[in-house]
């Protein structure tokens, strides 16, 4: 199988880190630790595991941070090298036809195979740990106590674990508990947006928005836009103010229902006006009820502290690293700073009601009310037509172009960049990959049927594959 492998190589890490710092994100990829390799397929770690053939796999900001050497050293013990990155995955389960689960376009080649998106976090169930830890028992796999233990090598997610492989390949292994079926009418492009949208859904519910509140979304890359869509779906009576750097991001945010979109420099003034606050220097007398920081930099966190109201919430959605921020306002204004990592199970009826299995007096809530974050995310993606955020796809062979594009997506008018394994069929002879081609054709048909513009883009891609591959879809 082909896979992009992140190898253990300190010199390559050093070069990649230096290049990205000197010349910008993604600029060190050529000399960095990521390499396209032909490798054996990963072994099935145990019962409940099966092989998955990726169709599309997105490039996430956290992937870029890893490649750029910007990730926090905190994660050092939560990954195992070498690993295949890619945790935003839509793919086909091998052997699912035999199990008769799901179906795939009756009459089309590949009919009967399950097309799924992967819930990438690796909890107790995936690691064969029994009994499960108290977090996994409550559906909070993202907080699993055994992230570095059990049957698998350490790895907080598929895409960071040496045992499972990752989405940037032609094959990986997934546990049945990680798989979520995708409706037939949902395009592959839409499906690849489910995982980041699940992160957004989890963050929005953690933010506990109430009707009439003002939410500020800082950053309008793919994650920020997913947060906007999630707020408008889950808390439609919340006012949403978005700070977006680029013109196309501002337009997308408006299309997704943002009430006001401004440049990052204007976010303080806009928040002040919408909340009718007074201003004292850069800080406001009142402010936004919740701020969703979808960037995770020192600048955006400091900005969030400036615009959030006393006792307001700041939700860290984008992966932060080591940042230097003045926390005096956090202390003085009793601001709550919340992390929102990944996804698990949610109670959408009680947003902000935190289930804390680790607490002595844990109020477990109503287990029957909890639903998978992914199920909610699939709704959001379908409702908000988030497939439009997929701007370009690349074959694995052009990974350097893909990484550079993803790293400069904003300034190039793009949003989500993904690897496209549908075209790999021409280069392989395995039965499973042949089935991808059929599935892809079916997907193309469904896209054209239900999403005219996406379909036409896809059609253009197919007809002029070699020339268009890797170019902007928009």
């Amino acid at each position, binding site marked *: 199988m082909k896979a992009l492998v992140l190898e253990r190589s300190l010199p390559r890490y050093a070069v990649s880190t230096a290049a990205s710092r000197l010349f910008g994100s993604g600029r060190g990829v050529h000399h960095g630790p990521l390499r396209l390799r032909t490798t054996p397929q990963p072994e099935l770690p145990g019962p409940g595991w099966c092989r998955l053939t990726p169709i599309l796999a997105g490039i996430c900001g956290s992937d870029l941070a890893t490649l750029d050497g910007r990730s926090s050293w905190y994660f050092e013990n939560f990954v195992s090298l070498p690993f295949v990155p890619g945790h935003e995955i839509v793919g086909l389960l091998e052997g699912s036809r035999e199990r008769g689960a799901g179906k795939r376009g009756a009459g089309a080649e590949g009919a009967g195979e399950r097309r799924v998106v992967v819930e990438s976090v690796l909890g107790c169930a995936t690691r064969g740990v029994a009994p499960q830890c108290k977090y996994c028992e409550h559906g909070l796999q993202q907080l699993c106590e055994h992230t570095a233990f059990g049957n698998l090598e350490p790895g907080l997610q598929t895409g960071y674990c040496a045992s499972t492989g990752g989405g940037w390949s032609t094959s990986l292994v997934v546990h049945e508990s990680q798989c979520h079926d995708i409706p037939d009418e949902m395009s592959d492009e839409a499906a690849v947006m489910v995982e980041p949208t699940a992160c957004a859904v989890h963050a929005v519910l953690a933010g506990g928005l109430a009707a009439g509140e003002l939410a500020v979304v800082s950053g309008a890359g793919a994650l920020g836009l997913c947060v906007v869509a999630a707020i408008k779906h889950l808390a439609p009576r919340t006012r949403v103010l978005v700070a977006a750097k680029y013109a196309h991001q501002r337009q997308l945010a408006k299309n997704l229902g943002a009430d006001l979109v401004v*440049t990052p420099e204007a976010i303080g003034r*806009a928040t002040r006006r919408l909340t009718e*606050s007074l201003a004292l220097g850069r800080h406001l007398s009142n402010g936004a009820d919740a701020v969703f920081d979808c960037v995770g930099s020192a600048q955006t966190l400091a900005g969030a502290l400036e615009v959030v109201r006393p006792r307001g919430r700041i939700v860290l959605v984008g992966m932060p690293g080591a940042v230097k921020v003045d926390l005096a306002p956090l202390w003085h204004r009793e601001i709550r700073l919340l992390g929102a990592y990944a996804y698990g199970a949610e109670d959408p009826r009680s947003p902000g009601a935190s289930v804390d299995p680790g607490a002595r007096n844990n109020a477990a809530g109503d287990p029957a009310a909890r639903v998978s974050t992914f199920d909610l995310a699939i709704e959001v993606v379908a409702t908000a037509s988030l497939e439009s955020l997929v701007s370009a796809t690349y074959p694995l062979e052009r990974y350097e172009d893909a990484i550079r594009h993803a790293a400069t997506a904003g300034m190039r008018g793009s949003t989500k960049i993904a690897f496209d394994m549908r075209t790999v069929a021409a280069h392989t002879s395995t039965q499973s990959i042949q089935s991808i081609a059929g599935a892809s054709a079916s997907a193309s048909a469904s896209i054209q049927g239900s999403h005219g513009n996406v379909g036409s883009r896809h059609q253009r891609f197919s007809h002029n594959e070699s020339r268009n591959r890797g170019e902007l879809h928009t």
Partner: protein
Amino acid sequence: MSPRPGFVFETDRSSPATLFWHGEGFRLEKLPTGARIVYPPEPVEALTDPVAQIRGALENPVGDSPPLSALLRAGMRLTIAFDDVSLPLPPMRSPDVRQLVIESVLDLAAEASVDDVVLIAALALHRRMTASELRHALGDRIYDAFAPNGLLVQHDAEDQANLVHLGLTTEGEDVEINKRAATSDLLVYVNINLVAMDGGHKSVATGLASYRSLRHHHNVRTMQHSRSFMDQEHSELHSSNWRMGRLIAASGVKVFQIETTLNTNTFPDQFRFLERREWEWSLKDRASFLATSFALERAPAGVARKVLQRTCSPYGLSSVQAGEVEAVHAVTTENVYRQQLVEVEGQTDILTMGLPYICPYNVGSIMNPILVACTGLGYMFNMYLGKPLVRPGGVLIMSHPTPWAFDPVYHPSYIDFFEQVLSETTDPFEIEANFEESFARDPWYIHLYRTGHAYHGVHPFYMWYWCAHALDHLGAVVIVGGDRSAVRRLGFKAASSLGDALEMAEDVVGRHPSITHLHSPPLLVARVS
């Protein structure tokens, strides 16, 4: 020798390049052959003894009013309101005409032993004047006598305790004005009628009013139905103010109106070339132009702005009349027209104009993009009687650098208006319906208006509403030499040269268009037949 009237010049191949104002600089542009240039009249003769003329006006009022001395008595409450820093432009060389008039009024008050006297700067929703601006307008003697004792105040349209609601007009318009002014035995209003739009009932009904009252005439519908603001008989803005003024009078508020007009002697000697026709420029004028242009071009924008903002006009007082409001204003308007009116035959396809560095709302600060729009579309476009200079669907070409720059002290709500409102829509009706109320009631803007030197939160809306008639009338607006992103935000088109702008305009009005250039300031009003 009597001053020459304004006139319309038609360019030919031998015509020299035409001077265009361009913010804190100038452009010399060669207009196409056959283009018309509307030049203002030369300054009328100034009154030789202004103080005596003022005294004479106070003792010989027009309309149904006794002389001022007959209205003054010991023990009375006397309030003297006066126009604020937005007039005249550029600021007048000392002594300012307000100083001369108010000193005369105070002399009479002293003779009548009136000791309860308060001066009020009639700001409406404008920014508060600085101490030096007040001192400049009133003179040291008045300032030092009144300001330290709290007897020189600035109207506060948000001070509910010092406002009084006098009732509703026949059209249901709230009339709410300054309580001290309304409850005085006599309100003397001292005005400077720089253009025909100023004065009359607008002085009190606007200058001393609250937002609750102002919103009835400062709105898009009224502005669109004022054609033009310089023609009181066809201006809904004035109709509304007149209804309010009459209600104020009927409520028992006794107003003694003193109106003054200035000639168009706008620029000091070193800038005299700005008032001359280009083919009449002397060697000295050419040298002045070159030296001034060279210095302004090379100076940092802030320095050039400061130099120009500090330039005071040698205006001469051309008339003064006092007494009953409407009778006074009728005479005043005639005097303004006598100075500024120019007969123009027919409309044009394309109207060009150069916008200067100053307008009523950026004294001492930056002319931000919203003020650029207002100066061109709100004021200069409306300098007409009869019909606009440009035909319906025609194009207005303005020359101004239009920087994306704002004064955060004077214009805080302008920044938000530009960033958060114009980014959504430029339609005045939509803006009024969706945004005005929240800006007008914003406590932060109100705080800055009341305690700092900020224009009221709603003020940028009014600037945009002033443009409503032009926006409705024109086919396109092009700004030459402007910051492209700022111009686009305004909803206009940006051109790097006049030639490009004319090419762009032809796309709208067709080939071989008629072109007219408004050579102003100095100010002029075109009576278009």
